[in-house]
């Protein structure tokens, strides 16, 4: 009788063990799947634009024509600023330099553009000297005021000359965001003013790898 009573007990124990094992496997797979599915949380604001970023051709600080779409295959960081900018532009360019440095050997997979919102004063020479303070790879872009206004509008950038009594002459108010354009030419992220170089670098690496 004891034998008969023990047998189902043992087989029940076996079933419980199998069940626990099953739960462990299913649970493990589920957790792995969730980790794999877990989206990368970008530091910048995400865009899902169905159209590629507007193309443009402007002159760089060496007097050469530079076209955005020639940089497909690279991540382009697009910024609008100007050389006489007292604080915001140097701070942002310093973060972009840091982001590029953090990429190490992959630094050549990105290109930083600064389009001037002060085309009257920012000649090729001025831009070359200004950008040399940050990173020799940065490209400064110069265009006719109306052309720059048209491009800036499309990229959500406003700019306006401010009368000021500063010895530097006038200032130019402008939107200080940085646009990330992915290797396929789509606007993917917007970084607000104050975004840190390491956060930008992290987002760049994710975009490059996905």
């Amino acid at each position, binding site marked *: 009788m004891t034998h008969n009573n023990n047998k*189902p*007990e043992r087989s*029940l124990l076996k*079933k*419980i063990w199998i*069940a626990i094992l099953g*739960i462990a496997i*299913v*649970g493990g797979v*589920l957790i792995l*799947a*969730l980790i794999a*599915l*877990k*989206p990368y*949380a*970008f530091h910048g*604001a*995400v*865009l*899902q*634009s*169905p*159209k590629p970023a507007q193309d443009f051709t402007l002159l760089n600080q060496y007097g050469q024509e530079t076209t955005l779409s020639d940089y497909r295959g690279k991540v382009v960081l697009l910024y609008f600023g100007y050389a006489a900018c007292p604080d915001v532009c140097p701070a942002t360019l310093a973060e972009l330099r840091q982001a590029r440095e953090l990429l190490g050997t992959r630094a050549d997979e990105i290109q930083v553009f600064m389009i001037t919102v002060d085309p009257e004063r920012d000649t090729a020479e001025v831009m070359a000297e200004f950008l040399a303070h940050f990173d020799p790879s940065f490209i400064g872009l110069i265009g006719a005021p*109306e052309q720059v*206004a*048209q491009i*800036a*509008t*499309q*990229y*959500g*950038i*406003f*700019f*306006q000359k401010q009368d000021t009594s500063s010895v530097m002459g006038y200032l130019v*108010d402008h*939107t200080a*965001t940085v*646009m990330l354009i992915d290797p396929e030419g789509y*606007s993917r992220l*917007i970084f607000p003013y104050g975004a840190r170089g390491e956060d930008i670098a992290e987002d760049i690496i994710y975009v490059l790898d996905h």
Partner: protein
Amino acid sequence: MSEKSSKKFKLLYLLYAVIAIVVTSVVSFAVFQPVKVLPRISLAPGYAFINQDGESRTSEDYRGKLTLYNFSYTHCDGECPDTTQQMQEVRAAVEESAPAGIDYALVTVTLDPERDTPEALGLFADPYLGTGENTVSWDFLTGDPLRVRYMVGGGFSLFYEAVASPNSTDDYDIKFYPLFILVDGWGIIRAEYPTADLDYDEVLNDINYLAVEINNSEGAAKYAYEAAHLFRCYP
């Protein structure tokens, strides 16, 4: 079978049921997207214009606000699809029932900046703005015609053109299709309503989705919303 073992079997079924529920909820989240998020369509244009009071208004003034844009002009009458009245209705609806703690703004952009000076816009806006105490700001914007073209035609992709008026030879009308655009505080276009007959409930629903997104954009909830974006856009 003993009572003890039948209890254990019940426990087993319970465990299986729990697993089934977890799996089903994950799959259904992916498939049915219970967290609705509006797509982040594209960048709204940057601009620097003047409002009906002659004050400067730039795209930066609307950063951090949910802003609804419409497009019209002061000579818009007859067949012209003037949607300004509907903006007034939206304003009332938003003030009455949109979630609190979020800044809302309305912007009407003229498609006829040649004739629509700030003064003309002021007269046009007056009956709509009224004298009431409003929590939702409303600006009527005009500016350099070319810059307006860049903003409306380029940035918002709304085509408009001047055509000779049938009533007089030296007059003109602006031909355009009615359009409302909802822009979030990041300056990203989140919804477009190409209609002359705006569905206020739809707009309020969209505003509610954005409000939930804004209010939950920290910590774990941010993850939930990022996930919803992921499932929507990269299936």
